[in-house]
């Protein structure tokens, strides 16, 4: 089943569906709730937002919560630079996303659904609402008590973090909460809350449509299924591409690069930057899944500028509450500027790498914890560009 890490395009999530609207949902709710969860676990589907938790386990945990008021939230706050797959899903196959949410609601006995849509995607609301209206009609017909509302974000990257997203829905600053408790135990308004990414819901719907066995046959032993990749940068094929998980970067670059690729940023700005010398040995989709944001840089690009741009982003989009993230991001930014200008010696880069590692282990949420990934991979692999 392992695909030998060859690049394989697939067409699942956007593939034409011959049935009637919400047939997938209708079929799903004929089945037992546990059966669906078992299927999801069997399929190996992991969260597609970046953290990569097994979706089936998350849903099972949610199903076990005894409260009557439960929320299913679709996290459409994709704000990571280089990520735009959720936009495409919401534009082209919103029905699949909603189907996934509705199946989740069915198996977890949740009545309330929310699509948390980032502020920048406000222009999607009208069409999305039309689809929600169609869904509500369908739900009524099949006897599913589940209402979906759109909640608009207001412009804060950190709200993609699920507890920050919940704070934001509660009318507060989007500052991530301390965990535990996790949202499934105590989320929106203190109620059990299941937060999944747009693609995760759509993929869950696909597992229901094609069955766990089929879904599982895609990908690698470790990472099953297909994944949407947002590809941008120096590529003649920018856009969203569905690929099986597990492929060598060299194959990826072969397919999507412009012939002059010097580095590939895998997993968005919170992910890793892979230099040309490692293209043969690096695999996309191994270990943790990625959010699928892949940015390609050719040899005309200054990696110092790239890193500088990332760090400006982090220093602004940190929620600011915890020390390592708020100040650490500023220090990394100022630090590379100081090395570049000669104010600080080359060796200062090592201090900054060490600092970024402290940020990784001490920051409160994934934002501060992940800055080190791109920082270290760019500074170590493109050291000359940082200095000269």
């Amino acid at each position: 089943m392992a695909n030998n890490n060859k690049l394989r395009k697939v067409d699942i999530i956007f593939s034409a569906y011959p049935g009637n609207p919400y047939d997938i949902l209708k079929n799903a709710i004929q089945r037992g709730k546990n059966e669906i969860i078992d299927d999801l676990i069997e399929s190996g589907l992991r969260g597609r937002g970046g953290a990569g938790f097994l979706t089936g386990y998350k849903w099972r945990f949610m199903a076990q919560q005894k409260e009557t008021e439960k929320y299913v939230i679709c996290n459409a706050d994709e704000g990571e630079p280089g990520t735009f797959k959720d936009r495409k899903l919401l534009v082209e196959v919103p029905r699949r996303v909603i189907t996934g949410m509705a199946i989740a609601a069915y198996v977890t006995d949740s009545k309330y659904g929310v699509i948390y849509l980032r502020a920048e995607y406000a222009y999607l609301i009208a069409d999305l609402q039309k689809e929600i209206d169609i869904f509500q009609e369908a739900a009524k017909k099949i006897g599913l008590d589940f209402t979906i509302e759109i909640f608009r974000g207001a412009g804060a990257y950190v709200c993609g973090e699920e507890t920050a997203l919940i704070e934001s829905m509660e009318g507060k600053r989007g500052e991530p909460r301390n965990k535990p408790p996790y949202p499934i135990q105590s989320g929106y308004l203190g109620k059990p809350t299941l937060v999944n990414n747009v693609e995760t819901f759509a993929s869950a719907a696909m597992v229901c449509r094609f069955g766990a066995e089929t879904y599982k046959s895609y990908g690698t032993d470790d990472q099953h299924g297909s994944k949407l990749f947002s590809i941008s940068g120096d590529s003649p094929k920018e856009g969203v591409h569905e690929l099986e998980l597990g492929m060598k970067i060299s194959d990826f670059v072969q397919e999507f690069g412009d012939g002059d690729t010097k580095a590939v940023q895998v997993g968005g700005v919170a992910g890793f930057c892979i230099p040309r010398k490692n293209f043969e040995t690096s695999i996309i989709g191994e270990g943790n899944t990625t959010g699928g944001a892949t940015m390609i840089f050719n040899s005309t690009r200054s990696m110092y500028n790239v890193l500088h741009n990332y760090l400006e982003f982090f220093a602004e989009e940190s929620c600011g509450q915890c020390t390592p993230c708020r100040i650490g991001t500023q220090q990394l930014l100022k630090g590379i500027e100081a090395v570049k200008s000669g104010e600080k010696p080359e060796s200062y880069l090592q201090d900054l790498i060490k600092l970024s590692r402290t940020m990784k282990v001490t920051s409160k949420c994934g934002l501060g914890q992940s800055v080190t990934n791109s920082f270290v991979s760019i500074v170590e692999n493109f050291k000359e560009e940082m200095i000269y």
Partner: protein
Amino acid sequence: MSMISLKIDGQLVEVESGTTILEAAKKINVNIPTLCHHEDLCVAGNCRVCVVEVKGRERLEASCSTPAPEGMEIWTNTARVRNARQDIVSLLVSEHNTQCTTCYRNTNCELQNLAAEYNVDGNRYLSVLKPGIKVDTSSWSIEKDDSKCIRCQRCVRTCAELQHVNALTASHKGKDMKISTFLDLPFNEVVCTNCGQCVNRCPTGALTERRYFNQVWEAIGDPTKHVVMNTAPSVRVALGEMLGYEVGHRVTGKMVTAMRKMGADSVLDTDFAADLTIIEEGNELLTRLKKVLVDKDQSVKLPMITSCSPGWVKFIEHMFPNHLGHLSTCKSPQQMFGTLSKTYYAEQKGIDPKDIVSVAIMPCAAKKYEANRPEMNDSGYRDIDAGLTTREFGLMIKQAGLDFKNLPDGAFDSIMGESTGAGVIFGATGGVMEAALRTAYAVVTGRSVPFENLNITAVRGTDGIREASIKVENCLPEWSFLEGVVLNVGVAHGLKNARIIMDQIAAGTSKYHFIEVMACPGGCIGGGGQPIPTNAEIRAKRTAAIYEEDMGKPIRMSHENPEIVKIYEEYLHEPLGHKSHKLLHTHYTPRNRY
């Protein structure tokens, strides 16, 4: 609650499930440094100084916000932990205005302590301190210096959780995140009660009281001025903390000597004015009761609420401007004292009131604002010229080079230096109520309150809201309208609880006749001008000291204070009389709630 066990630094510890790692460590005397954590406040988990290693986890966990994990091994002192903490403190220092030598909180700063403990190199990271930060000195009470702020949000949590005022908020995000008032307006323009509880909990010098002690030194040094100092009840039970004594040690006598040695021309006691407040306020209560119960006067408001806490007064002016009629019209003891210092005292001593400088030493930040209220000039002058905190006072004693511990005990001067145990207990929550009941009951029935040793224990304690009911029986003839009345009294401390009491009044469901409200948790002993730090244990010790002082007083009811008897005979003539009304009572100003 089920118990769990875990190992901290190799030592087995059993705790209730849900206990944080920090609490579990404390149980076995393992010290973990903290900054954003404060035991009076909810957990924030944002400074990350308290990180520890949980065996098997790559991430370090913030011990203040992480529940102790069953069966796990915690290490609080590994190289990883130390390095991370040093990095974090270094980062905070890089964002900080490190002019420690000129900082008011120098030597009493939690960031400074940690920087020293971890031997932080100030040049390790570049400074990310924003240039051009101005100190907000707009308020009479509180100064805010963002250049010293570490964004721990203790002040925000204090203002929200303890005081329900929410004058402070975190604003913006990322590198621009800071602590703000509404639109960063100056402190004197926003809904701030000046209670100073944020100051008490600020780990650094970002929030401090506005200082006036230099003006006091100047007055002391001016031979044409007659400097009158008076000290509030709770100062004497907390001042010692700044001068080498254990918490809860009373230093009344040494404090008096210190003031004299510093050069005060007269060393008097706010407690005298507290006794006076009881007479005026007690009579006001009885009058209100009569008007409501007998005259059925709809314009008179019950419950009547005490007005001696200026933080509380400003709170009700902002939050319940339509209910100011419930406030007693009595000035606070500080302001009664101030007015009398420039009228009665001046007359008796034959001093021109324009030469008198009246200095109040208070446990309070809001008293500074109160002293500067425009209406507080009934003596024809500023009734109080300077309001100092216990902290400023402690500093002045140090500046004066006094060997405080070896000072002989002194006694307050007269007049306006005599006080009773009832005046003393004003310093603790419930004290004004107890003092008022001692006197009012005696006035109405001719007997002492039916409690052992006059200790009305029902109104003492630390619960946010306490209440008691006293049945009035066998009244003296002139008070017969109170015969059989069950007097319901309530006590609230901390503005969070004051709001609960006021919401009841606003809803018309309040069952009380008389309520004491203190803005600060614990009352004045926990005031915003008291020595830092504060916590429940410290407040309890100061409170115990207050009640010791009360028990040690020969007279424990305000109306028996001979100087009080004398001032009514010679000067005021009668409670609520013409002169009292002019000098000792005030009015209030409705303000904006939002």
